[in-house]
């Protein structure tokens, strides 16, 4: 397909005149039948790539996606863009609905599915019976970061791809070090895939860290940031309960419109809060990492991490939701010495010693059921006849990788020199020269004036409207 035709399609289908960095190159490789690993920064329209390729090539686009909430977002977004033949196959659907969907796969253009679901024989059989336009692994870094000790089904994606007849494959991620990229292509068995790499650097996001003495000081700084820096704002936490509690507190003390968001909410509540935020009816969202993948809001001005993320790769992903409109934005980590212990203990939840692994293998041999999340993960290996020693090796290697990731993150947090340089060197990139609007060095104030990020208007409170007027506004035109 000629380049001019692709531009025409871009304009006609999506209303854009220009491709974003990386999009065109990836699309051209895919249309030429080549596999691609694309590392493109968040906000560069990764989904447009498979949408456009899907509209050119005949057959179904299968998108392997890690989270149900992300799949729901993606389906909703494609619906929004006028794609009607889209569905997600998830464990939330009952057997009948799933079966119905599998029976009409040939009528779909896009199918979103988790690795676990695709691994089910009935699903795999149904997908094998339709023509595939493209096989997409979204958030492909999960293969490396989630595979061994959390979602082992990610490790079978290479086999699944073979069973699907080696369709043209697109691996998408926003952040991947050389090591992770190598892991992805090895696990998916596409060593010759083209790699289209764009910098993880987002120069319009100012990088800051506030080192604080204790939890009280942290809360005070959170409040001060929310009250003085322009919104909309996302505050990330590692616990569900804390999102709700902090949202309530911030609402009370700032008078701003604040809501909590986490995977424990009902689908209806998640939808409503997400849409309120998208349409500017919320100033602040207090969220776990369940919020964000799939969020396409261009004007987020600040992302705060109340708790440390688990790695720099996660951090880059999460702050990448800010400033997608290209305007200045601010990313702040609130750090109290010792916060890393929380990350450490979360890491420990999914780790296991060789002795524990061997004991669990004995449990499996005695035909006793899995009793905890770790046993369930290990069952995956035992069912495939993998030797405990090899499993131990993988767990040891993964634990070491997690340690390295945490250490790299701490180097960034405690850095006394340019943070952007520390971050970019982790991803093997050179940094631009440090400037006032690059990042915060110890002792420096936030340059809110220079960044144009001072909160302007007084806190907003929503007025309660009469129900009859609200009803008219919903259903009567020209009201």
């Amino acid at each position: 397909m000629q380049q001019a035709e692709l531009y025409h399609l871009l304009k006609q289908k999506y209303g854009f005149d220009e491709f974003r960095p990386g999009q065109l190159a990836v699309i051209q490789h895919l249309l030429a039948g080549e596999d691609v690993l694309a590392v493109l920064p968040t906000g560069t329209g990764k989904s447009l790539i498979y949408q456009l390729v899907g509209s050119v090539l005949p057959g179904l686009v299968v998108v392997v996606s890690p989270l149900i909430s992300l799949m729901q977002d993606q389906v909703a977004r494609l619906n929004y863009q006028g794609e009607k033949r889209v569905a997600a196959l998830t464990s939330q659907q009952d057997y009948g609905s799933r079966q119905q969907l599998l029976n009409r796969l040939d009528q779909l253009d896009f199918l979103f599915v988790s690795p676990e679901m695709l691994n089910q024989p009935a699903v795999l059989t149904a997908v094998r019976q339709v023509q595939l336009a493209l096989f997409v692994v979204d958030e492909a870094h999960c293969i490396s970061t989630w595979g061994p000790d959390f979602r082992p089904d990610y490790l079978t994606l290479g086999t699944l791809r073979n069973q699907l007849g080696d369709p043209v494959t697109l691996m998408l991620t926003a952040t991947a070090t050389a090591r992770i990229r190598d892991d992805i292509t090895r696990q998916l068995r596409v060593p010759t895939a083209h790699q289209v790499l764009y910098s993880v650097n987002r120069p319009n996001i100012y990088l800051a860290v506030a080192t604080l003495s204790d939890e009280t000081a942290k809360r005070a700084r959170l409040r001060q940031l929310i009250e003085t820096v322009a919104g909309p704002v996302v505050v990330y936490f590692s616990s569900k309960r804390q999102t709700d509690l902090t949202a309530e507190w911030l609402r009370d003390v700032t008078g701003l419109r604040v809501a909590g968001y986490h995977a424990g909410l009902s689908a209806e509540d998640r939808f409503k809060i997400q849409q309120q935020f998208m349409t500017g009816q919320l100033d602040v969202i207090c969220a776990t990492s369940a919020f964000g993948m799939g969020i396409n809001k261009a004007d987020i001005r600040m992302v705060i991490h109340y708790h440390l993320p688990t790695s720099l790769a996660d951090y880059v992903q999460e702050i990448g939701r800010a400033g997608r409109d290209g305007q200045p934005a601010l990313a702040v980590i609130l750090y109290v010495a010792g916060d890393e212990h929380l990350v450490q203990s979360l890491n420990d939840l999914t780790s296991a010693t060789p002795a524990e692994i061997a004991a669990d293998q004995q449990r499996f041999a005695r035909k006793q059921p899995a009793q905890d999340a770790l046993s369930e993960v290990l069952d995956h290996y035992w069912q495939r006849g993998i030797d405990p020693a090899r499993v131990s090796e993988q767990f040891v290697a993964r634990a070491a990788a997690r340690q390295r990731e945490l250490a790299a993150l701490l180097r960034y947090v405690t850095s006394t020199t340019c943070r952007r340089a520390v971050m970019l060197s982790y991803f093997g990139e050179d940094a631009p020269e440090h400037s006032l609007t690059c990042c915060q060095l110890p002792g420096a104030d936030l340059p809110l004036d220079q960044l144009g990020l001072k909160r302007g208007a007084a806190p907003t409170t929503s007025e309660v409207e009469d129900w009859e007027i609200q009803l008219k506004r919903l259903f009567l035109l020209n009201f």
Partner: protein
Amino acid sequence: MFEDYLLRLFSVTPRRAKAIFNVLRGRRTVSTLFAGLTYGCLDQLDSWHGVPLERFLATAEALVNQGFLASPQPGYLQLTPDGQQRVAATTLYRPVALSAFQTVAVRQFAAEAQLALQVVSEAVHQQRRYYPVTTDPKTQARVKAWVRQQSRTREVAAAVYAGLHAFLGQLDPQLAAIFVASLTGYRQPGLTDAQLGVRFDRQPIELLMIRKDLTCQWVAWLQSHPKDPLAGLLAPLVKASPVSTSAQRTVRDFSQSGDLNQIAQNRRLKPSTVREHLLEAAILTPRFPFKRVLSPAVLTQLSDGFGGRQDVADWQFAEAQAVNAQLTFFEFRLYQIMRCHDATS
């Protein structure tokens, strides 16, 4: 709070806690249904569907520990004086229409209506690009089919508006406001229960109950206004009777032949299943033909023994059998059910 809703289900006399919880969770065994009938909470059958039994049990245990409930014997709970005071003092919303759960797939209707109202609201404002509320493929397919059946967008929207306005106009204004504020549509994502709780100064769990009850009230309103566009969405989700299809068939067969063993043979059912079917029907339909099953002699005997006693749930089968050794448990239970219906009619 959930605790207060739970406390309301108990009285000063002991009640079987698990049976009550199973009524709320929608379990339809005869023993559960009978408990619901004797404890006067059958109208809440299935209204807390999906809530795990463990959550009920843990909440009840907490209420016992706090001194609001007491357990006079294993499995039974009753209100303490403190519990009575707490029940009397609570101002939590009292649902009035939950019995709709017996004959209507209320949750499915709520999901379909939410999407249908969003589609109509966006369509009348000529919006083609919007995020549809998250629903399963079945709900989407059913709403799509409903949308196709509608005439012109503006007329449908006007009719939907008129219907909702009429329905909401008869409610307490705060309830109407809650209903409308929770809707999703043009430029309105809708408020969550937690947000409604803040706005209307109520607990989120109360909002959950209010919205559930309002959906049930709306269902009842639509059933009496069959020309409303949303009535078309509701109709396929309504059953004619709360009784299961198989039990209805047993009742029909019984009214023709009157012979339980014959029915069991014809339908290849165990005789005990046939009796369970009749008991289920008797519990859920007050106009059940009791006197076709209970002979005049049995009725007289049981009336002589239990006629003056109101504590139906506490009657012992052994007492009745002492008078008439031939009496079956089926006859005894049926008489109990009849007396419960008599007391409430």
